C-alpha cells in the first residue's frame, strides 16, 4: 500500500500549503467558483427543462422530442461539446462558451425525468383531480407536480452530478473552479495539486448528492415517499 502513503502525502502537501487557502486561486475561492458555475448551469437547465417537461408531460405533446434528446444526450461527448462551443464562440472572452454546453448537457436528465414523472402519474389520480373541478393548472400544480416530485428531483440530482463533473472538465478550456487544480496540476506536473483537487471535487460531488437527498426528504410529501411506517 505504498501508494496509499504517497496519496496521503500528496493530500498533506496540497492541503497543508497555506498558499492554497487564500487568494483568487485558493481553495475557498475555487470552491465558490465551482459552486457558482455549477449552480448557474443547473439553475438555467432547470429553468428550461422543468417547465418544458411539465408542459410535455401534461399535454402529452412532443414526447418523441424528449425520447430522442434523452438518447442523444447520453451519447454526446462532454469534452467535444465543450471544445466545439469554445471554438464556435471564440473570442467572446466570457464564461458563456462553457456555460452553454454545461446547460445543454444538463437539460436532458431534468427534462426526461420531469416528463416521465408527470406522465407516470396514475391516470386515475389525474382523473380524480379533474373530476373534482380542478382546472388544468391546478391539476398540474396541486397534484401532478407534488406526486412527480421524487422523479423531478432525481432528474435534477442526475443533472447536478453531471454539471459538477462537466464543470471540472471545463477547466480545460479555462473555466475556474476546482477543476483548475486538477488540470493545472497535471500540466505543471504538480501531482499533489491533482490529488488535492480531485479529492475536493469528489467531496463536492458527494455533498451535492447528500444535499439532494435532504432536499428530497424535505420537499417530497411523506405520503408520496411512503416514508412513514404503515401502522
Amino acid at each position, binding site marked *: 500500500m505504498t*501508494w496509499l502513503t*504517497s*496519496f496521503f502525502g*500528496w493530500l498533506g502537501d496540497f492541503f497543508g500549503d497555506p498558499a492554497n487557502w487564500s487568494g483568487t486561486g485558493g481553495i475557498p475561492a475555487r470552491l465558490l467558483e465551482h459552486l457558482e458555475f455549477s449552480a448557474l448551469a443547473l439553475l438555467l437547465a432547470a429553468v428550461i427543462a422543468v417547465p418544458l417537461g411539465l408542459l410535455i408531460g401534461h399535454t402529452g405533446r412532443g414526447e418523441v422530442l424528449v425520447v430522442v434528446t434523452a*438518447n*442523444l444526450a*447520453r*451519447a*454526446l*461527448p*462532454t*469534452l*467535444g*461539446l*465543450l*471544445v*466545439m462551443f*469554445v*471554438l*464556435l464562440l*471564440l473570442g467572446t472572452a466570457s464564461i458563456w462558451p462553457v456555460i452553454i454546453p454545461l446547460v445543454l448537457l444538463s437539460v436532458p436528465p431534468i427534462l426526461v425525468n420531469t416528463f416521465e414523472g408527470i406522465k407516470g402519474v396514475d391516470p386515475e389520480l389525474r382523473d380524480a383531480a379533474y373530476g373534482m373541478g380542478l382546472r388544468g393548472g391546478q391539476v398540474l400544480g396541486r397534484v401532478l407536480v407534488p406526486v412527480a416530485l421524487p422523479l423531478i428531483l432525481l432528474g435534477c440530482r442526475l443533472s447536478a*452530478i453531471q454539471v*459538477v*463533473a462537466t464543470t*471540472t*472538465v471545463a477547466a*480545460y*478550456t479555462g473555466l475556474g473552479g476546482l*477543476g483548475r487544480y*486538477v*488540470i493545472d*496540476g*497535471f500540466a505543471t506536473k504538480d*501531482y499533489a495539486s*491533482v*490529488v488535492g*483537487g*480531485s*479529492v475536493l*471535487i*469528489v467531496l463536492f*460531488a*458527494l455533498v*451535492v*448528492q447528500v444535499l439532494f437527498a435532504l432536499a428530497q426528504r424535505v420537499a417530497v410529501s411523506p405520503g408520496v415517499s411512503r416514508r412513514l411506517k404503515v401502522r
Partner: protein
Amino acid sequence: MGDGPPSLWEWIGRNWDTGRVDSISNLLTDHLVMSFMPILLALVVALPLGLACARWRWLYQPTSGLMNVVYALPSLPVFMLLISVTGLSQTTVIIPLAFYGTAVLIPAVVDGLDSVPDHVRQSAVAMGFTPLRRLLAVELPIAVPVVLAGLRVVAVSSISLVSVGALIGQGGLGGLFTRAYQNPFMPPVITGIVLIVALALVADGLLVLAQRLLTPWVRARKGTAS
C-alpha cells in the same frame, strides 16, 4: 495542397487512415477498446454481484448506496487519482468506466431478477427445478430485457465518457477534441462528436438487436397478438 484550411471531408480523407497511431481509424479502434472493455468488465462484475444482492437482500441496500456514490464521482478527478496507481495508460480510463458501468448494472441485474414474476419462480420450484438450473433456465432469461436495458445505458455512456480520457492523453476519439482545441479547428471536433455519437447509436442498435434475438417473447408483444 491548396490554400486555406481543408473542408471537413478533405480533412477526414487526409486523416482517416494514415497508417499512423493518430489516424482517425486508429483513434476509433482505441476508443472501441477503451469503451468496450469497461462494458465487458462491468458485466462480468455486476452479474455475480447482482445475483448475490438478489439472493441476499441485506446486501443490496449497502451495495446500491455505494454504487450511488460511485456513480456520482466525476470522471476526470477519478482518472487523475488513478494515475498514481495505474499510470498514464488506457487502464486508467477503463477502470473508472467499469465502475460506473457496474453502478448502473447491479441495480439492473437485481431489477431484472425482480422482474421475474413470483408465480413464475414458484412454479419453477414446484416443477422440480434445482436452484442452479432455475437460475440459468428460468430467471436469467427472463431478466434479460431489464439487464440489457441497463447495458444499453452503460454502453452509450461509456462510449461518450471515454473522450474525457483525452485530458490525460488516453481519450481515443477524444484526442481529436484536445488536438482541435490546441490548434483551433472545427473539423476534428465535428468528426469526433459525430463518430462518438454514431458509435453510441450503433452500439445501442446492436444491443436492441441482441435483445430482439434473445427475447422473442418480448418482441412479439408489440406484434399481432391474436
